[in-house]
Every structure is written in structure tokens, then in C-alpha cells.
């Protein structure tokens, strides 16, 4: 066993140990601290891999896991978000119990599922074998569903069921695609394989017709996982019903799993003749998702749903970026994962404060935000500015980068994209203006909800990262992103 194998095993061992420990421990504080320790460990391990080892490399034998820069990058994002969500959870969960939103008996389940989800997410990104990827992605669905349903509301059950049924049914179609690929390689090289690294090396010889079909089937599944229209309906419902920190990690990492899968598939089909059609398909789906999401946002009275729809819009934009397919576009798409994840999580965390303050995130219940929750007010403003792609936000750069590349496809596409961004921006702007400016004098009946530092700091950190990256691009990040793009074989 080399060091990588040990680390890969450590991920699992640590994850399992901490999950068991959370289940055994009685106090909420211990459980929460344990949940903070796990992402920290993961961060440390992942950084160690990034610094100390030669990538890409196989882990635990050559059949199942591949560690390349993209997986490391995604794991780093995921672990950071989980860490911040865990910090945020400390007060949030306590308050949820206090207001009977959550049962104290479910605490263990909450933290166990939280840690298991992190583990599943980490392995999803490490999976080299697409079938394994598929399995782990389904697992994340299962854990997410548990986390969504943890709150005492019938609507949450509905949301979780929606989540499970839509994504799982679509994921079954993805499996059909995987079987097709497996058969195809069996036909071509004698041994069936679903290993991405292997597929990449033989992709040139794969039949474009079958690869096109296979891609479409896998696309259906992964698109559903990312909430691409028309497989998207679970996303706003689930995210709006989930507890604040869970919405944040779902939108930041779990949503990305789908487009991550599409990205991996894309790099395979990019070497076949089917790529032209697939690019059109991706752009079409991306644009449709963006349009539908943006239009829906315009009339959405629910803050968390609004943010959820915005996730759909952004995932659509990522698809468009993939569809453009140049190396520059890919660079910005990969960067977009980070920028979007952090911004979106900050928005959900801020919305969590609003939710606990007013007991609802619907527009009509929210008033006097600046008097009661001025921190949340400002973080929502900054988050909204960031998500609609205003400078100094990192999204501005990524958006501009991809938009600039979109002109290469067609200026019409650029116009459409810009119009959609206008709608999305208008939706956010109008919503924020309406929400934050509502003032009523009768504040006495609204009890003040005290927000501790534990809830503020994660939001501040996320926003700080997003805004610093919008102005300052570290050399290491550029190198990392360039390495990722070259490893993906995109030219």
C-alpha cells in the first residue's frame, strides 16, 4: 500500500469512526464538534495529497478510485463547506430544537447523516469507475433525503420524496447509459470497463452513435442530480425545506455532483465524433434551464426557493459552458463550481437566519430586517450582488469568462444568456428590495432571534472568499485550474 491508498482508506475509516462516535455521544456539543473535526481532517488529508503526491494517481488498486486535481479541488470545496455548515449548525440546530422545528431525538441521525454525506461526497469525487460514481451519487441522494426529512414538517417528507423519486428514476436511465458504455468497451477492447481513465485512453475508438446514446442516458441521470430543467423540480422544494446548513451543503456540493458527472462523461465523448451534437444538446438544456429558472424566479415569493431556482439557473450556465467546450470555457466552468458553491451556500446560510427570525422565508412574513437582523440583511445583499455576477464577486469573472467564450458559438447565444442574467438579476433585485425594505412599526410581536458568532462567521468567511477571489487570483489557483483543464484533455 502506498501513501495514497492509506489516505483513501483513512477517509473511510475516519468517516466511519466519527459517525459511530456521533451516534454514541450524548451531548449535542460533542456531536457538533465531531462533525467539525471530520471536514478538518479531510481538508488536511486532501491538502496533503495535493502537496505531497504526484497526481493523477490510482488509489486502492486501479479499478475503482482515481485521484486527479479535479477531484482534489472538489473535495476541498466540499470539505470547506461542510466545515462551515457544521460550525453554523451548532447554534442553528439548537435553536431548531428550541422552536420544535426539530426533534432532539433526531440529533444523532442528523449528525450521522451529515458525516456520512460528507464521506459519500468525498468518494463520489474520487470514483474512477463510473458505476461506482453512480452508486455513490445515489448514496448522497439517500443521505440528503434523510437530512431533508429531519425537520418536523410533513412538507419535508414530500420534498424528500420528490427528491428521491425524480433523481432516482432519472439515475436509472443513467445506468442504462453506463451499461451501453460497458458493452461498447467490451466490444472494442475485449474487457468491459467503466473506468474513466481507461475510457479516456480508448475514447477515440468508441462508436459515436452508441456514445451519443450513452451520453444522453447518463446525461438524464446526472442532469436530474444537478437540477437541470425539466428534471429540476425537486431542487427548489428540497432546498427550501431543508434546514439552513443542509441547504447550503446540498447546493454547494451535492448539486455539483451531477454536472461533475456530466463533465467526466463529456471529456470522454469529446474525443468522438458525437461531440458536435452533444454540445448543441448541452447548450440547449443549459439555456432552457436558465430561462425557465430565471422566469420562475421573477414571481417567486419564497426566499429559499428563489435561491434554489438560482442554482438551477447557474447549473444551466455551467452546462452552456461545457457545451462551448473550449479550454478557456472549461477553465471558467471549473472555477465556477467554486464561486457558485460558496456564494450559494452563503445565501442559504443567511436565509437560515431569516427563517429562524420569522419562522418563514416567504416574502409576506419578512419585515424590519435591518432592525432585527442587520447582519443577515447585509449578507443577503452582498450574496445577491455576488450571485447575479456583480464585481467584485468571483462569479463576475467566471461569468464574463464564459460569456466571452459563448460568442464563439454564436452572438445570439450571448444575447440570450445576457437576457437571462438580466431576468435573474431583476428577480433578485426586486425580491431583495421588497423583502429588505418592508417596514412595519409593530415590531413588538416579533421576538428577536439572537444570532451568535457561530452563525455569522461561516457566512462572513464564504463571502470573503468569494469577494477576494473576485479581485485576486492566486497563482496556485490558476495553476490548479489549468492542470485540471489539461488533465481533462480539453483543448
Amino acid at each position, binding site marked *: 500500500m502506498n501513501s495514497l491508498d492509506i489516505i483513501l482508506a483513512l477517509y473511510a475509516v475516519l468517516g466511519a469512526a466519527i459517525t459511530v462516535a456521533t451516534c454514541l455521544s450524548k451531548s449535542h456539543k460533542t456531536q457538533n464538534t465531531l462533525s467539525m473535526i471530520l471536514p478538518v481532517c479531510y481538508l488536511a488529508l486532501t491538502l496533503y495529497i495535493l502537496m505531497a503526491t504526484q497526481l493523477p494517481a490510482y488509489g486502492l488498486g486501479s479499478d475503482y478510485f482515481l485521484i486527479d486535481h479535479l477531484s482534489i479541488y472538489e473535495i476541498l470545496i466540499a470539505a470547506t463547506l461542510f466545515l462551515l455548515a457544521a460550525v453554523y449548525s451548532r447554534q442553528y440546530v439548537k435553536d431548531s430544537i428550541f422552536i420544535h422545528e426539530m426533534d432532539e431525538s433526531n440529533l444523532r441521525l442528523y449528525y450521522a447523516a451529515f458525516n456520512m454525506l460528507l464521506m459519500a461526497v468525498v468518494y463520489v469525487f474520487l470514483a474512477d469507475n463510473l458505476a461506482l460514481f453512480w452508486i455513490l451519487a445515489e448514496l448522497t441522494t439517500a443521505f440528503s433525503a434523510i437530512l431533508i426529512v429531519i425537520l418536523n414538517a410533513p412538507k419535508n417528507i414530500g420534498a424528500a420524496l420528490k427528491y428521491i423519486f425524480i433523481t432516482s*428514476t432519472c439515475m436509472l436511465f443513467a445506468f442504462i447509459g453506463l451499461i451501453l458504455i460497458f*458493452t461498447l468497451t467490451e466490444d472494442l477492447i475485449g474487457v468491459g470497463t467503466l473506468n474513466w481513465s481507461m475510457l479516456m485512453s480508448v475514447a477515440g475508438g468508441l462508436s459515436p452513435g452508441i456514445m451519443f446514446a450513452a451520453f444522453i442516458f447518463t446525461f438524464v441521470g446526472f442532469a436530474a442530480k444537478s437540477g437541470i430543467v425539466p428534471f429540476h423540480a425537486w431542487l427548489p422544494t428540497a432546498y427550501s425545506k431543508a434546514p439552513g446548513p443542509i441547504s447550503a451543503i446540498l447546493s454547494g456540493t451535492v448539486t455539483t455532483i451531477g454536472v461533475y458527472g456530466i463533465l467526466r462523461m463529456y471529456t470522454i465523448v469529446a474525443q468522438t465524433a458525437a461531440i458536435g451534437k452533444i454540445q448543441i444538446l448541452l447548450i440547449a438544456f443549459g439555456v432552457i434551464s436558465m430561462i425557465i429558472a430565471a422566469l420562475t424566479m421573477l414571481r417567486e415569493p419564497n426566499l429559499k426557493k428563489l435561491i434554489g431556482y438560482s442554482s438551477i439557473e447557474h447549473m444551466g450556465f455551467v452546462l452552456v459552458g461545457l457545451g462551448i467546450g473550449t479550454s478557456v470555457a472549461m477553465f471558467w466552468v471549473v472555477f465556477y463550481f467554486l464561486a457558485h458553491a460558496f456564494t450559494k451556500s452563503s445565501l442559504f446560510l443567511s436565509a437560515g437566519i431569516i427563517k429562524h427570525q420569522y419562522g418563514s422565508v416567504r416574502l409576506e412574513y419578512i419585515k424590519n430586517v435591518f432592525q432585527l437582523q442587520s447582519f443577515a440583511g447585509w449578507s443577503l445583499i452582498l450574496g445577491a450582488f455576488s450571485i447575479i455576477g456583480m464585481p467584485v464577486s468571483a462569479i463576475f469573472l467566471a461569468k464574463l469568462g464564459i460569456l466571452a467564450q459563448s460568442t464563439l458559438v454564436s452572438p445570439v447565444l450571448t444575447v440570450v444568456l445576457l437576457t437571462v442574467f438580466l431576468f435573474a438579476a431583476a428577480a433578485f433585485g426586486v425580491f431583495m428590495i421588497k423583502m429588505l425594505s418592508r417596514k412595519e412599526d409593530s415590531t413588538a410581536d416579533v421576538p428577536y432571534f439572537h444570532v451568535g458568532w457561530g452563525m455569522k462567521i461561516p457566512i462572513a468567511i464564504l463571502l470573503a472568499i468569494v469577494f477576494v477571489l473576485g479581485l485576486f487570483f492566486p497563482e496556485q489557483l490558476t495553476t490548479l485550474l489549468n492542470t485540471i483543464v489539461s488533465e481533462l484533455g480539453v483543448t
Partner: protein
Amino acid sequence: MILPTEQLTQILMVMVLATAAIIIMKRDIRSLIKTYAFQSLLVAVMALVFYIETGAVTLLLLAVVFIISKVWIIPHFMGKVQQKLNIKRDIKFHFLSPITALIVSLFILLFVYLAFTPLIAELNRFNSTLFTLGATVGVSIVFMGMIVIFTRKQTLTNVVGYLTMENGVVLFSLFLTELPMLIEILIIIDLIMLTLIATVLAFGIDSTIEEFHARLNPFSREQQTKKPEETTQ
């Protein structure tokens, strides 16, 4: 030896299709679950037939796992749930009436056949129409399972639909290839888990929240009354 296998396979395929059609049509949940168990059995038998033909141990194992999990455990569990929920029939149909749904299924069958014939033809290993047919039936059953999901109201029925889709996928993979064992096992565990979660949640959707928690966790009520000491400002 080849001829009887082929015929047997064809007969099994038709029967699987028939069970899928029954699942689309049936209202009574108990018989739905039974039909599903029968369908799984058919798929398992098919795996056995292939095992006899090719001698791949994976297929034998698959058949065993199938019989244990899908013919026995899941239907049994679902039957329990159905008894507890005390819902006997799923009367409402959405979007498509059973007859229309069957007609749509026929069209789907046709489309899948049209789409897959050229694809399968590209693969060198499959020169018989049996594979094409098998692949078509597998994918069609996936679609038919989906029809069940969106035409039915009850979550339990939806779960049956989802399980049907799974059977379709397995059928499809049986005809085309054999996946590594580990993957197969993992997939089945995975799906079972999702099914369990969905079924458990089915409780919630049909009962009030207190009942739900009471049913799931008999101790939750006592703990709920305990309040945290912290006071918020």
C-alpha cells in the same frame, strides 16, 4: 441447446412485459406487490438461464441475490407497510388512464426498438435479434415503471414503479453484458436502501407528523417534552 434457451428467454421476456402491464393496470396494492415479486422472480430465472448458457458465476449469484432481496425481502417489507398504513387500493390515476398508459407503453416499445436496433447492430458481438429484443424490453420496462410512478398517487405504488424500473435496468444489463460482481452487489444494496427510505417516508405522507414519529420512534414523545435550558433573547 441454443434453440430452447432462446425460446425460453423469449417467453420470459413476454411474461416480464406482461407483469409490467399488470403493474400499470392494477389498483389493488397487495396484488401489485405480488406481481412485482413475480416479475423479479422472472428476471432471476432469466439470469439463471443465462448462467446455464454461459456458465458465468456472477449470474448465478445475481439470481440468488435477486431472489433473496426482491422476491422475498422487499415485497414482504412492503406488504407489512401496506398493512400498517391500511391502504388497500390506489384508485386515482394521474395524466394517463390505465388504457392510455398501455397504449403509450406500446409506442415507447416501438420507439425504443427503433432507437436501439441501429445501436445494437453496431456492436460486433450481438448478431442475434434476441439481444436487440432483450435490450428493448429492458429499456421499455424502465419507461413503463416511470409511467407507474407518475400516474399513481400513492407513494407505495410509486415505489413499486421504481422497483419495476430497476428490474428493467437489470434485464437490460443481463442481455448486453455482465458487470463486475462488486458493482452489481453495491447497486442492489443502494437501491434497496433508497427503496427503504422511500417506503418509510411513505408513512409520513399519509399520516400526521406526530403519528409518523410515534410510529417510527416510540420514545420520541418523552424526549420532545424536554426543553433546552438556553433562553433566546
